[in-house]
């Protein structure tokens, strides 16, 4: 490990630790070692305060009212959309708020996948995902295939947790892949996929492409214009933002022709007795009262990331992974799944011989070391790996090598309890 790799993490984490109120917590005198950011992120004060202040000072219905309070709430809401869109390399028109990444994917599966006018997906067509997908990027496609008669297929992964390029090429060559849906970063393996190249490759084969950026947006620079996917989805709560909000960025031409999926207030222009005309983008896809405070909070989260710099967060987490991987490998019976540090985001899943991940998680939890255990909403991947579950440590900007130390120490202690 280089000097740099040791120092970089410490400095970023030192700078930001104080921004996260929850990190001040102790349990039996042990500081909180939060290594579960891939499941849900912690929130900096600026995000919590933005929500708090919205409700205290600016809460009012958006878009429609003529009094000052309502103008300020509208500006806070649409202003957040503007900053989020700009940060992501998107436009406000193509930046649609959803409840979470899951809902964004379902939106595409319904409004794009089930449109009877276009028949985008039908019998004989293939929806292609990968063996490393999260359930949220599998189950909506299973349902779409069930309802349309299309076939769901999975791009294989290699034994070191990378997409199998040959298998992908072969499947695209079939010529009937209508949609390719793939994670930007795997939430279990940590694999960072080269989505820009994947988009180009799949598009050349005639497929529409959806990228699941749930893990990527908090971890690395993402520019949706450069990636150029048809749909790019992500979720607020993993990106230092609040629960209850996610984002769908779509290609403008697609969104413009897609029919709305949810009906209700705000997404219409004129409601006649028997039909309606629909509002402009992005509101056409935002039915009912929006998650206003959540959008304001997500705007603050994006400000937070932008201030730190996504590339600095990426470098920081990368250094932590480089620090942790060899030290974990030294623990007897511990096996890390997924690729080496070069191709990996801030996520490390592992198994420990003689201990079920649940028991690992429980014993680590007693040391106030918070890791995730289980199938991580990726049962097909678990089946592919031939294991029921893993334990997973994942990093954020506020983690430092002390956290890695605590993880290693807690793992040794856990093994002792089990007499290993």
């Amino acid at each position, binding site marked *: 490990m280089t000097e740099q790799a040791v120092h970089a993490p410490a400095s970023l984490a030192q700078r930001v630790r104080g921004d996260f109120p929850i990190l001040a917590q102790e349990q039996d005198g042990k500081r909180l070692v939060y290594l579960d950011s891939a499941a849900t992120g912690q929130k900096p004060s600026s995000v919590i305060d933005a929500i708090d202040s919205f409700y205290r000072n600016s809460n009012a219905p958006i*878009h*429609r*009212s*003529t009094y000052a309070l*309502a*103008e300020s709430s*509208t*500006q806070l809401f649409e202003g957040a959309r503007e900053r989020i869109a700009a940060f992501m390399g998107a436009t406000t028109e193509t930046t649609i708020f959803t409840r979470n990444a899951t809902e964004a994917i379902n939106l595409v599966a319904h409004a794009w996948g089930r449109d009877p006018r276009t028949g985008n997906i039908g019998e004989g067509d293939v929806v292609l995902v990968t063996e490393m997908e999260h359930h949220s990027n599998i189950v909506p496609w299973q349902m779409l295939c069930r309802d349309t008669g299309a076939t769901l297929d999975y791009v294989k992964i290699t034994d070191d947790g990378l997409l199998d390029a040959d298998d992908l090429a072969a499947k695209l060559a079939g010529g009937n892949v209508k949609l390719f849906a793939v994670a930007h970063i795997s939430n279990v393996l940590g694999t960072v996929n080269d989505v820009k190249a994947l988009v180009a490759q799949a598009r050349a084969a005639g497929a529409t492409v959806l990228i699941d950026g749930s893990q990527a947006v908090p971890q690395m620079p993402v520019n949706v214009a450069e990636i150029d996917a048809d749909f790019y989805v992500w979720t607020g709560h993993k990106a230092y933002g609040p629960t209850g909000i996610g984002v769908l960025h779509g290609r403008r031409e697609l969104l413009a022709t897609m029919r709305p999926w949810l009906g209700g207030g705000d997404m*219409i*222009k*004129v409601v006649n007795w028997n039909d309606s005309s629909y*509002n*402009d983008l992005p509101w056409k896809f935002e039915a009912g009262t929006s998650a206003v405070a959540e959008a304001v909070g997500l705007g603050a989260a994006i400000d937070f990331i932008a201030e730190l710099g996504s590339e600095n967060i990426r470098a920081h987490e990368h250094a932590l992974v480089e620090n942790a991987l060899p030290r974990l490998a030294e623990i007897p019976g511990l096996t890390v799944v997924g690729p080496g540090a070069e191709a990996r985001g801030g996520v490390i899943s592992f198994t420990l011989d003689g201990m079920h991940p649940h028991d690992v998680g429980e014993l680590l939890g007693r040391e106030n070391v918070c890791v995730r255990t289980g199938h991580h909403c990726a049962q097909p991947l678990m089946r592919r790996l031939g294991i029921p579950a893993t334990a997973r440590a994942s990093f954020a900007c506020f983690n430092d090598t002390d956290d890695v130390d605590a993880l290693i120490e807690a793992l040794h202690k856990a093994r002792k309890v089990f007499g290993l």
Partner: protein
Amino acid sequence: MMDELYRDYILEHYKEPHHFGELENPDMQAHDVNPLCGDELGVHLKVDESGTITDLAFHGKGCAISQASASIASEELIGMKVDDVAKLDADWLIDLLGIEISPTRRKCALLNLKVMRGAVTGDASWPE
């Protein structure tokens, strides 16, 4: 009592709008809705061979700002070339009105220009 927004001439145009109504056999026309409030506005145009607007009538329902704006604009638009109308932007109309418009009311003021441009170009987007 003098109001910064509801100036006398605005209220006069609202109460007695100029060129309000419909034209028979219009050469161009368009109709649109402000989705935020449901206000509707339609416009009918007569255009001669040189592309000059020779007559105009608007109709619909709306607030004082949208109706006065349509009335005031109509005076300027008659006699203009449709090509020039296509190039008009939001500032042109806001300046013409001579009042401060809040962000929420901006669409009230601009609805008639949106519809006018829709009639002459087919582009129904909001003036910027």
